[in-house]
């Protein structure tokens, strides 16, 4: 990806600017919030339905447009599955799942129990015992189901391919024909659970965080319809919960986490860089337009920090934040950052 130098400009709300007073790590970059949306008191007026952006702040969710006008603002029942176009607001005990459009209109009633989640435009449901995963169309048609003796603890998908990792170390892959194949058991470690999985946009690369004693991040490349290991990184410790790992939208970078370290692997330079952060990572959002990663951490004292990190591991911006509820998203050159009940809009403009 062509290296871009961005500047984030425009001063709009002075108070908000003071609240988010930047601590520059790089003085050539200006960072200012330009618009704020109060998620609890949205701007009145009809939202532009073609540019709706989903948000969730604590138990409030909704969609707003580029001008801060909300199409819907409501309370989350127990949890919510949400993408740009649809949402499923569901209760803790589900008997069916109601799909709504981003303007609140009813779309379908999916006759299955379990907890739903979107990966981009694809909708998946995990059964109550976490042993079955199924894909559904928005209209409520079951596309595939797969059940295993072990709990599913990681997954990823692109338009064609879906992958899932299990506690017993199994990885399954379903291609565009929805044919499910047991891909592998990595079996590199004493215990072989798959704690994180990622698939590139073209399905050529697959990455995972796997194992205990030792724990590895491995990258595999597709060759003759088989994935073969091309890169292995051994962690110095074992983490026993699900790990964040994802490819950038252009597949140039692979981002992953381990406790309080943020890693970035560059497929062009073939370099792995790491950024130690203050506290455990609790949210990550990659901003494709700029190549920055926005990261939130929380340390043992309960203090939260917000970072913007360059792909080469330099910290561009760091700020202590107060709220537990943090929202991060980006769309069409804008980065959205929410904390408390406010969402701040940051425009990114080329120099």
């Amino acid at each position, binding site marked *: 990806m062509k290296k871009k130098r961005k500047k984030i400009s425009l001063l709009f709300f002075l108070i908000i600017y003071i609240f988010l007073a930047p601590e520059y790590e790089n003085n050539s970059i200006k960072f200012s919030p330009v618009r704020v949306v109060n998620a609890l008191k949205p701007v009145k007026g009809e939202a532009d339905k073609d540019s709706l952006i989903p948000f969730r702040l604590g138990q409030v969710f909704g969609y707003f447009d580029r001008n801060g006008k909300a199409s819907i603002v409501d309370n989350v029942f127990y949890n919510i599955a949400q993408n740009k176009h649809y949402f499923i607001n569901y209760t*803790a005990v589900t008997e069916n799942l109601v799909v709504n459009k981003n303007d609140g209109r009813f779309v379908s009633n999916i006759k299955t129990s379990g907890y739903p989640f979107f990966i981009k435009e694809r909708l998946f449901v*995990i059964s109550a015992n976490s*042993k079955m995963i199924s894909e559904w169309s928005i209209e409520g048609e079951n596309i595939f189901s797969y*059940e295993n*003796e072990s709990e599913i603890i990681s997954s990823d998908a692109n338009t064609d391919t879906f992958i899932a990792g299990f506690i017993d170390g199994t990885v399954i892959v379903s291609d565009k024909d929805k044919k*499910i194949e047991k891909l592998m058991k990595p079996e590199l470690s004493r215990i072989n659970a798959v704690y*994180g999985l990622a698939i590139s946009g073209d399905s050529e690369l697959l990455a995972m965080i796997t194992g205990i004693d030792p724990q590895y991040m491995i990258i595999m490349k597709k060759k003759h319809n088989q994935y073969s290991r091309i890169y292995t990184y051994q962690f110095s410790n074992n983490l026993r919960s699900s790990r964040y790992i994802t490819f950038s939208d252009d597949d140039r970078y692979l981002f992953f986490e381990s406790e309080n370290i943020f890693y970035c692997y560059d497929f062009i330079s073939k370099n792995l860089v790491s950024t130690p952060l203050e506290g455990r990572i609790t949210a990550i959002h990659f901003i494709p337009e700029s190549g920055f990663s926005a990261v939130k951490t929380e340390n043992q004292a309960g203090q939260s920090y917000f970072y913007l990190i360059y792909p080469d591991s330099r910290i561009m911006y760091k700020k202590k934040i107060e709220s537990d509820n943090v929202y991060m998203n980006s769309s069409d050159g804008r980065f959205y950052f929410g904390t408390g009940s406010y969402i701040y809009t940051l425009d990114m403009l080329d120099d």
Partner: protein
Amino acid sequence: MKKYFVILLLLITTSALFPLQWPVEKWVLQSTFGENRGNHYHTGIGIGGGEQKVLSVADGEIVYYQEENAFSSLPSELGNFIIIEHERELRTTYANLKKDSLEKNSIKVKSGDKIALIGDSGASSGPNLHFEVVDLELNEIVNPLMLLPPAGDRTKPSIKEVFIEMAGTKEEIKLLNRNNIKAGKYDFSAVIYDTSEYVDYFCQLAPYKINVYINGEEAAVISYNSIKKDDKSLVLSSNMKKVSDYYKNTLNSWHVYLGQFDISAGVVRVEIAASDFAGNEAAKEFLLISQK
């Protein structure tokens, strides 16, 4: 002194007989293995008894923990949960745990160590521990009651209704004591459930075993010992049926498929028996007078 020696001997014998100890000190069985959960079998047992410590059932190592709605975790109705691997190729899951109670830094655990508190996270409607056991050698999810010391129970299962349906037709006949039918192949099904004496509300549970006898000969045994993988679905190991083929109708139905049997011309005596894990048994007998 002799008395203490006997108690000690009894304790040693009991622990040798049962590979696992109960994951709580005071247990109330609220749901059992193999129950119908709509799109899947209940793959564990549900234990009530109010908020209390959750204990590791054997020596082992925590291999996974998940906190409800945690960043980077998939959503799960198990809520807060812990998975432990033990010797003897066993893996146990403890779910619906109380928020912030997980002892996630205690990686190596001893039998009886506190690992969390019972909670109501995930899809639990009240304080409840969902407990599961996987046999890693057999690759099967096993009924935890087979490995735990006896829970004790005095209530019999209930056999409510028995139905037959001639193969190829969709005409279901509810069996009476005497029934006149045509000879042929019939699919048998029945509404069967167990109840618990430990809860003060009407609580239906799956039985442990169902037997079908035809003219005194055992024609089918469905036991709720284990669940395993078959192609893309989990099936009850004893009859290889997936949940949608075993339970007729949907969620909360106790109407189970018993099998297809050949009823020849003449008088045929059919007995359906159901027992729970404590050995309490119920049975019902029917006469089929069949003609060619």
